[in-house]
């Protein structure tokens, strides 16, 4: 197996509100990412998936825990990282309409990272910008256009090109296609997968779309209220979801074919809503919505347990003392 590029250990990120309340956005998450693989991070809104992304790129400092990136702990560095580390970890945001500067041409947007991370002169930078466009499958004429003249999918590919400008090793894709139509999403995903093969990139793919995840991820991790519930290789995960929350998520997905319908745990019906992360319920965070709730779930926080090869689940139903 390829080496680990990233190891997250007991990562915590708390935010303190003005009134003194603490939002536990990420509350003890362990993850590993291997070179060249795609790890899918799935969760509903408010589950802390974007917070993890922002801590990884250094937009936030971790409250506690370690992020070991190629042998170095970068959890507490925030933005004070080496230029090399910043270049190697790049992010693509959800909405290309707001992550690209509308007053800059595509070329100018692509030249910003080049100015900071390379020693190229202006002509070479322009050449490189066009090369990047070609890499993501867009025509070179797009260099002179403004983002508003482009479609959503094309804009998102430009964000990808901008992230590629620094020759990254680890790309964090924060819902890169959830603002796009399916036919456009298919194009962008296809390109992302090609790029991963060509450039040997590792992806942390954040999304709320489990059916998309099935088609892109090697491994899947499910977040609920800042904690992981389940983590497994993709094929295994969809065949045999174990955590009650995961089953609820899967059964809620609207699907288009009868075969898919057969894969959903039909008996589990969605109920309740995700509680506020200001007041995380004691014990297992999911117990308020869980149909298998036992007294222990309200008192003790369950621990992650490996139930089969690489398939981890964090639930009292599977723990030894239950």
């Amino acid at each position, binding site marked *: 197996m390829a080496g680990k590029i990233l190891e997250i250990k007991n990562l915590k990120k708390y935010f303190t509100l003005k009134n003194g309340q603490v939002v536990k956005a990420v509350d003890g998450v362990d993850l590993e990412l291997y070179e060249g693989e795609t790890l899918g991070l799935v969760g509903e*809104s408010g589950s802390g998936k974007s917070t993890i992304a922002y801590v990884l790129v250094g937009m936030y400092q971790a409250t506690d825990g370690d992020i070991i990136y190629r042998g170095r702990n970068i959890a507490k560095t925030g933005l004070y990282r080496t230029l090399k580390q910043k270049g190697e970890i790049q992010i693509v945001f959800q909405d290309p309409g707001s992550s690209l500067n509308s007053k800059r041409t595509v070329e100018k947007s692509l030249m910003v990272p080049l100015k900071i991370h390379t020693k190229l002169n202006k002509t070479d930078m322009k050449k490189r910008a066009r090369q990047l466009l070609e890499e993501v499958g867009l025509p070179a004429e797009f260099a002179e256009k403004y983002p508003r003249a482009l479609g959503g*999918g094309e804009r998102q590919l430009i964000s990808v090109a901008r992230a590629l400008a620094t020759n990254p090793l680890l790309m964090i894709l924060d819902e890169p296609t959830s603002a796009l139509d*399916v036919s456009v999403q298919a194009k962008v995903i296809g390109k992302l997968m090609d790029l991963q093969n060509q450039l040997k990139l590792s992806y942390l793919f954040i999304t709320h779309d489990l*059916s998309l995840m099935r*088609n892109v991820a090697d491994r899947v991790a499910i977040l609920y209220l800042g904690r992981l519930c389940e983590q497994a290789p993709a094929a295994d995960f969809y065949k045999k979801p174990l955590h009650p929350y995961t089953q609820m998520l899967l059964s*809620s997905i*609207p699907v288009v074919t009868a*075969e898919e319908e057969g894969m959903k745990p039909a008996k589990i019906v969605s109920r309740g809503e995700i509680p506020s992360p200001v007041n995380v319920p004691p014990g297992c965070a999911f117990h308020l919505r869980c149909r298998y709730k036992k007294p222990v779930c309200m008192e003790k926080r369950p621990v992650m347990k490996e139930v089969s090869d690489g398939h981890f689940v964090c639930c009292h139903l599977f723990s030894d003392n239950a």
Partner: protein
Amino acid sequence: MKDMDNTQKDTILEVKDLSVSFDVYGKVSHVLDGISFRVKKGERVGLVGESGCGKTTTLKAVLNVLPRNAIINSGEVLFEGHNVFGMKPSRLAAMRRTGAGMVFQDPSSALNPVFSIEKQFITALKYAKPKNTSARELYNIAVEALDSVMLADPERIMKSFPFQLSGGMKQRVCIAMTIAAGRQLLLADEPGTSLDVTIQDQILRLINKLVLDNDLSVIMVSHSLGVIRESTSYVNIMYAGTVVESGGSDDVFHNPRHPYTVALMSCVPKLTGEGIAKGIPGRVPDYMKPPKGCRYSTRCPYAQEVCRTQKPPQQEIGPGHFVSCYFANEVI
């Protein structure tokens, strides 16, 4: 003859050959091009297509709330047999108050943030109910409606302001406001899109239950094929202002025949993990200069000369399953 009378009676809404364009600073954008469909009593009809295909414009035409620069080129929308474009203002207002109502995509912007739910709800009901209904009665109707959309503790919800409620709760309030007035037709414009999947599932199941319990009709609009498959019985697939394929939902999803539907289906990521197609080449046509023939002809791999010059007629390829394509029987 008797049969025809029956279908007339069963139909709550009929859209006939509707074409709408927009005057954009002197240029004309031809958006809807010959949309026809019918909604029967108690039926759930879906409109599905990608952004900009005219789904919302169609809904707005049904309520006759198109913006001022809209031009209705042809066609009519018959609500309970009356054309909404020719209705007297008073009759039109009555239809909007008690006949057909919309549930919007984003419940946070559908509710007014500075008034309590009670204030908003009662105001809406006041116009929908007879003039002599007492305040107490209105309040009770509202509480009952909130209860029917499975909101716990409706009295507390009535006192709340929108910011105190979650997205799913707000959407339930919006649905309650629509049905409390006794409306027969619900126009649901992407009712779950802005919500999480587990909440979307709850909202869609709620709408289905209300429809069955109260014998309502729904036009469900969504860009998600999955949502439409699971929550409608009849579906219209739209592309660039035209209905390319329509039929029973099971039929269309099990056996898609229009090249666009086939291509779109292959782009949807599936739980079975068979991979995703590489998208549909090309772009949606420019509405200022739409193709003369089939609007999909610019992107269709099977397009022939005839597709580019002449609009394809609707063909019935199975019972109740219509496809607007010259080669519907040849495409798999």
